[in-house]
């Protein structure tokens, strides 16, 4: 296993802009967080909040009109944002690999799974015989019969395809995985199987995970830390259980109030009024203020600074650290 500091991801003030014809969209606007070895950090937010943009920026696979306009992402002390092509080639997949949302699109429909797995390994200098042996090992790891290696993607079910994509991500045994909504397209029962498999693999292989989803109840169950994103910014960051039990930011509270439960008393849930903002012309001050039930005067004028409630719980809200709610 890797020594702790070598596989810590440390993102500092990361900024990504989309240059559109309507103006500049600040899709990721000064985001900072860490993923330490063995942790599962969840990134939650609605569509358009910038979660996937962060994932793509971390592997430097963003395409124009997206531009990384500032900040650092240190992995083992090296800044990913400053790597040249040769360094990136060695970095991607060996240090951090990614599992995309739609396995259907991530796999090549005209290549056998065996060849797609081998492709990754051959490219990184593993010889053919070793790659073949490793492919069988990987399929056993993710819970598919090695006999299915010679299948084409369309011959596998949705769940098996997603497992195959995970196997490809694990091919080089990276210390960290990014999972971009890996189970959103799957049915709940299959989702549960795959999440259990991921958890098992994580315990076996010791990688850390950056898990991106819009499903907060799922994150609370699987992650160690959660970052809540709204309009390109992290508004609250805390250990999973603490965030669930003591959410502080009105947006987090609203999100918690958007998921009906399958047990306990039936409560009327309110969700959050209004719609997510248009990031070409974002609201002034705190970007959540037009939808916030507790908005004050200051909220529309000044963007709140992040307040540290405990060493690992921070909130960006004027209600906090202002004699407001604690």
């Amino acid at each position, binding site marked *: 296993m890797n020594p702790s500091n070598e596989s810590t991801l440390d993102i500092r003030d990361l900024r990504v802009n989309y240059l559109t014809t309507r103006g500049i969209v600040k899709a990721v606007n000064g985001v900072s967080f860490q993923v330490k070895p063995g942790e599962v950090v969840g990134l939650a937010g*609605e*569509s358009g909040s910038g979660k996937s943009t962060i994932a793509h920026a971390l592997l430097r696979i963003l395409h124009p009109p997206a531009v990384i306009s500032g900040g650092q992402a240190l992995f083992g002390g090296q800044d990913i944002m400053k790597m040249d092509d040769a360094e990136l080639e060695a970095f991607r997949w060996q240090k951090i690999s990614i599992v995309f949302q739609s396995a259907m699109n991530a796999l090549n429909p005209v290549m056998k799974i065996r060849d797609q797995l081998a492709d990754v390994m051959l490219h990184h200098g593993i010889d053919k015989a070793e790659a073949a042996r490793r492919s069988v090992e990987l399929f056993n790891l993710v819970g598919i019969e090695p006999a299915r290696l010679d299948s084409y993607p369309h011959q596998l*079910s949705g*769940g098996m395809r997603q497992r195959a994509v995970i196997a490809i991500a694990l091919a080089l045994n990276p210390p960290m995985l990014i999972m971009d909504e890996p189970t959103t397209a799957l*049915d*709940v*029962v*299959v*989702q*549960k*199987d795959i*999440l*259990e498999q991921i958890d098992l693999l994580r315990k076996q292989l010791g990688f850390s995970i950056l898990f991106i989803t*819009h*499903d*907060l*109840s*799922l994150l*609370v*169950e*699987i992650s160690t830390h959660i970052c809540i994103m709204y309009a390109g910014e992290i508004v609250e960051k805390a250990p999973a259980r603490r965030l*669930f039990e003591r959410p502080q930011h009105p947006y987090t509270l*609203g*999100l918690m*109030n*958007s*998921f*009906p*439960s*399958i*047990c*306990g008393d*039936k409560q*009327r*849930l*309110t*969700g*959050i*009024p209004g*719609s*997510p903002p248009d990031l070409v012309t974002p609201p002034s001050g705190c970007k959540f203020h037009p*939808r916030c039930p507790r908005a004050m005067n200051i909220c529309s004028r000044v963007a709140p600074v992040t307040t540290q409630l405990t060493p690992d719980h921070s909130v960006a809200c004027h209600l906090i650290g202002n004699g407001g709610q604690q």
Partner: protein
Amino acid sequence: MTTKDHETTPLLEVRGLSKEFPVGHFLNPKKVHAVEDASFAVKRGQVVALVGESGSGKTTTLRMIARLIPVTRGEIFFKGTNVVKSEPRQASLDYRRQVQYIFQDPFASLNAVHTIEHHLARPLIIHKKAFGRQEVHEHVCDLLETVELKPADVIASRYPHQLSGGQRQRVAIARALAVDPELILADEPISMLDVSIRMGVLNLIHRLKEERGISFIYITHDLASARYIGDDIIVMYASHMVEGGSSDAIMSQSTHPYTKLLLSAVPDPRASLRTDKNGKARGEVPSLIDPPPGCPFAARCPYVKPVCRKVMPAPVTVAENHWVRCHLLAGK
């Protein structure tokens, strides 16, 4: 029809509804059994939630009820009249007015080149609900206010791309309401929406049920939202309805192994109290092309018996308003 009949006859009753789609080569024809032997009823002012995984036959059931696709076998009774039999054009139009459909994808169900006003005015004009430009416009604004889209005047002149997903889905609901329906078929109306605005749409459906007595069939794969909004829940698995009953009964006294599996798979941090974590049922949904006889869940069921692979169990009533199709209960 007497008043008493009016009260006791369910608004919609479906008996033995089945749908088969032909597939395969013409020398080797096969059939996809999309829905088999579905029977249930919807009372006035009731929300019935149809829950199941993708491919379980929920949407096909709904489309047959909406008469968008023909029925292979079975009967659909609306206010006691069988609507599957051939009928005069006027009766068919009448049925289609009273039963409206909300589609899953609000980005595809509105026409991009027409204003919201156009979308809402058309059903009003076709079904002769309003006459003259002024009256139609007032009616459109009323509809928009009913679905909480304000200011109605401004929204009416907008095009679909100028609205958010949640607003578009509300327009789709307003369009369904335009013709005063008695039953609305909602096909996963919130699955394409952002999480923070889903509750708003569900609460709107609940309000329409309470205030106007409109019945809904609500399709979802999410048990938690089915419980939130459904009076009754019916669980579907591989084209069969396997368990049904009041939503409380399904949540707390579910008896079918598949329902239990589904319940145990829902991610819910509040559900640490759940006792039955039977996650032992492995495997995948069987193919629906010429399936073998017996219970469709037999291949995955941890309690499978020989009889399960031979005969599909008949519904057994386990309590008031709670039935199950499972051989485990048939002997009791």
